[in-house]
C-alpha cells in the first residue's frame, strides 16, 4: 500500500468505520465511564494501549498457533484467553518497570480486559486478512476512533449536569439519545471513503 492508502485506511478506521459508533462495539464503558472528562481520557489511553497489544498478540496466535494446528474455530476462546493473560502480564510488568504509566492508567487497564471492542478489533484483523503491519495500524486507528467518540460524549454529558433535564430523560436515557445522535453525525463521514 502507498502512503495515501495508509492515510485512507486510518481515516476510515477512525471516522467512517468507528468501532463504537458504526460497529457498536464497546458500548458498556462508553456509557459507564463517560460521566466525567478525566475518567474518559484515562479510559481512552488504556483502550489505545490494550487494543494495540491485543491486536499484535492475537495475530501471532492466529497465524502461529491456530492455523498450523488447524483449530481456527477455537479462535474466540483462544483470543479471550490470550488477551486476558496479556493484559495481566502487561500490568505486572508495568507495575514494576513503568510505575508512572501504571498509575496513570490505573483501574482502567484490568477493566477493559474483556471488552468486546478489543476482541472485536482482534477478530476483524483476522477476518479482513490484514498482515502484521496492517493489524498494528488498524488496531491503533480503531482505538483512536474509540477514544474520540468517548471524549466527545463525555464532554457533552458533563454539560448535561448543568441544564435542567426532564425527569424521564435523566442519566442513561439521555445518554443513549445523545449516542444515537453522535452515531448519526459519524455516519455523515461515510462518503469520505468509498468501500
Amino acid at each position, binding site marked *: 500500500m502507498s502512503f495515501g492508502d495508509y492515510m485512507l485506511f486510518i481515516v476510515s478506521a477512525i471516522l467512517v468505520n468507528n468501532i463504537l459508533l458504526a460497529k457498536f462495539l464497546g458500548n458498556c464503558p462508553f456509557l459507564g465511564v463517560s460521566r466525567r472528562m478525566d475518567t474518559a481520557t484515562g479510559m481512552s489511553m488504556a483502550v489505545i494501549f490494550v487494543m494495540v497489544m491485543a491486536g499484535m498478540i492475537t495475530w501471532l496466535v492466529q497465524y502461529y498457533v491456530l492455523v498450523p494446528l488447524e483449530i481456527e474455530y477455537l479462535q474466540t476462546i483462544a483470543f479471550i484467553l490470550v488477551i486476558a493473560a496479556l493484559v495481566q502480564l502487561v500490568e505486572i*510488568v508495568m507495575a514494576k518497570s513503568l510505575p508512572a504509566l501504571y498509575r496513570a492508567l490505573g483501574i482502567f487497564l484490568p477493566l477493559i480486559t474483556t471488552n468486546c471492542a478489543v476482541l472485536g478489533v482482534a477478530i476483524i484483523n483476522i477476518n479482513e486478512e490484514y498482515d502484521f503491519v496492517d493489524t498494528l495500524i488498524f488496531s491503533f486507528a480503531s482505538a483512536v476512533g474509540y477514544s474520540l467518540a468517548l471524549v466527545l460524549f463525555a464532554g457533552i454529558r458533563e454539560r448535561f449536569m448543568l441544564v435542567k433535564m426532564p425527569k424521564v430523560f435523566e442519566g442513561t436515557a439521555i445518554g443513549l439519545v445523545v449516542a444515537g445522535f453522535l452515531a448519526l453525525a459519524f455516519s455523515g463521514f461515510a462518503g469520505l471513503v468509498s468501500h
Partner: protein
Amino acid sequence: MLFEALAIGGLGLASALGLGVAAKVFAVEVDPLVEAVEEALPGANCGGCGFAGCASAALAIASGKAAANICVGGGPEVAVAVSAVMGVEVIYREPDVSQVDCTYSTDIAELKFNYDGVQDCRAAVLLAGGPKVCEIGCVGLGSCVKVCPFGAIQIGPDNLPVVDPALCTGCGNCEKVCPKNIIHLTSVTRRILGFNADYNCLAPCQATCPAQIDIPGYIRAIGEGRYEDAVLTIKEHNPLPLVCGRVCPHPCEDQCRRGVTEEPVNINHLKRFAADYEMNSGKRIQPFCMPKNERKVAIVGGGPTGLTCAYYLARLGYAPTIYEAQPHMGGMLRYGIPEYRLPKATLDWEIQGILDLGCEAKTNQVMGRDFTLESLRQEGYEAIYLGVGCWSSRGMRVEGEDLDGVLPGTDMLIDRGNLEDTPVGDRVVIIGGGNTAMDCARTCWRLGAKEVTVLYRRTEKEMPANQIEIEEAKHEGINFHFLAAPTKLLGENGKLTGLEYIKMELGEPDASGRRRPVPIEGSETVLECDNVIAAIGQFPNLAFLEQDAEAKDLAVTKWNTIDANIDAGSTNIPGVFSGGDTVTGAATAVEAIGAGRRAARAMHNFLSGEEIQVPEDWVHGPKELPQITATPDAAPAGNRAKMPELSVAERANSFVEVELGLTEEMAKKETQRCLQCGLYCYRRKGQDYEAWKWERKENA
C-alpha cells in the same frame, strides 16, 4: 477432541506460566503498611473519600498524601483503626455537615433581581464586585441529591436542597458538584472561627454587625418558632445575647433594607426576645464544645471582650482563666451600664452560662499587684489576652476640679455596679453628650437628684449617645443645655457651689465631620449646683505595664491604648493578645465582643502552632459591599414592634429595668417584616411568576 483440548489447555498453561514467571520476576514489593491500612478500611469502594476505591485510598494514606480519617463511609471506628496502623494520634474533630446557603429557589429566583436596572444577580456581581462566584440562587438541578452516596440530601418543598444532618458524613461530594456554589461543608467550629467574607451572601445587617452575627438566620428561626436554634445561631458569634439585646446600639438596624422605605426591623429586640426565652425557660441552651484539651490560657479582664474570648477558647477546648480586678465579673457591663438598662441578675445569669462551659474566674485580681505577665507564664498559661478596658475618666481641665462635689463620671457608675449609692445633692450637672453622660444623668435622677442638667458643647444632633437614651432621659425630666462648655468650677470652703459655663456656636466642620463649637466671648453664665460629673471620655489605665518585666516592652499607641492588630488582636509580644476598648478606646460592647472572637481565633491559630492568618477578603462593614438603595415590591408587613416600657412614674427612685421585652406575638409579627435579604436580593411579595414574566414582555 483430545487434541483440541490439549491445544487450548496448552495455551492456557503457557499463559499461566508466563504470568507466574512475570509475577516472580517483576514482583513489586507491596508496602506492608499499605496492606495493613487496606485491611483496616471497610473495602466498600464507595469513593466518598475522593480516591478510586479503598486500595488507592490505602496507598494515599500510607504515603502520607491523605489523612488517616479520610474514610467517610466507615465512620470514626475506621479512622481509629487506620490511625492505630499509621501510629498517629487520634484527636476528636467536629464532623462536618453540608449546609445550604441559599434561601431562594428557582420558583422565585428571577423575581428578586429587579433593582438599579440590573435584572440578574450575576450581572450585579460583575458590575459591583468584579468576577466572583455568585452564591445566590439555587437552580434546582438536584446534582447534589444524585451525588450524595448516603442519601442525605432531598429537594425540599420550595425546590431547595434539604440536608439531613443525621445521614450527612461530610464527604463534600455535594459541595464539589454544585454549579452555583451554594452548598458548603460547615461545622459549628468552622463557623465560630469564620469571618464574613465578601464572597458570602451577606445581608446588609449581617455585614454591619461588629460581631458578624447571622441576623437573617436567627430572625428566620424565631419566625418559625425555633427559639433554641435562634439562640444557638446568635451564640455562634455572640456569647452575650441577653446583654447585647438590651444595650447594643444596633448599627445593623441603620443598614436594614426595610429601613429604606419604612422603619427598620427591630433586630436587637428580637435578639433580646430569643435570649430572654432561654433565660425564662429555666434551661440553659449550651452550645457545641470541642472536648477539653486542658491547655491553659489567661484572660485579663472580665468585661465583654474578655468573656467573649474566654467563651470561644472554652468552646475550642482550651481551659481559660479570667482575672478580674473588681469583685464581680462583667467589666463595664456591670460597672458602666446602670441596672435599669441591664439588671445585674440578668448579667450574672449570662456570665454563669459562659463560666459553665469550663472557664475559671478569679476576681479581685489586679494586674501588676497580684500577678504579672511573667507570673502568668510561670503558672503555665500558653497565651494571654489583655482586655482591661477603658477605666480612667478624662478630666475637664478647668479650674476647681479638686473641689468637693466634683465626680469623675465612671466612679458613680462603678459604685452602682457594686450596689453602693453615691450620695448626690439636689442639683447635679453632667458634662458630656455620650452614653456615659446619659447613664450618669438618669442614675442621678434615680438617686434622688431634683434637678439634673446635661451640658453639651454641640447640639442634640451631634450627640454621640444613642437616640433612645436621649429620648428616655427627656422622658425622665433631665434638662439639656446644648452649646455650652464649662470654664470654671466655683466653690466655698472647698465645697462646690456652682459652675460657670460659656455659650458656644458651631463653626467649621472638623476632622470628624462634626461642626466645631466656638466659644462666644462674654457669654459666661453661672449655674448653681451641688455636684458636677464629667463624662467626657475614658481611656485605658495601663499603669500596670510599667511594673511588669515583660509587659513594659508592649507597644502602646500615642492615645495610650495597646497597639494590637485589629483583625487578630496580636501584639508585638508573641502569645500576648489584646482587644476591645483597650485597643480601640472606649467603644461599644458589640465591638468588644467581635474583637474577643477574632482574638480567640488568632489564639487558637497560635496555640495550634499555625501562623496567625487573617482572611484578606473579610468584610469590615457594609461599605465594602454593593448597596441596594431601593426595595420595590417589598411586601408590607406592618409597623415596627414598639418595646413596652415602664411608665416614668414607676421609674423614679428605682433601678428596675425600664424595657420589658417583646411578647412572643410581637416578636413573631416583627420577624415577618424581615426581607430575608441576600447580597443582591430580598424577599418580595408573592407575585405570580408567569404574570410577572408576561408583564415584562409587554413592557419590553
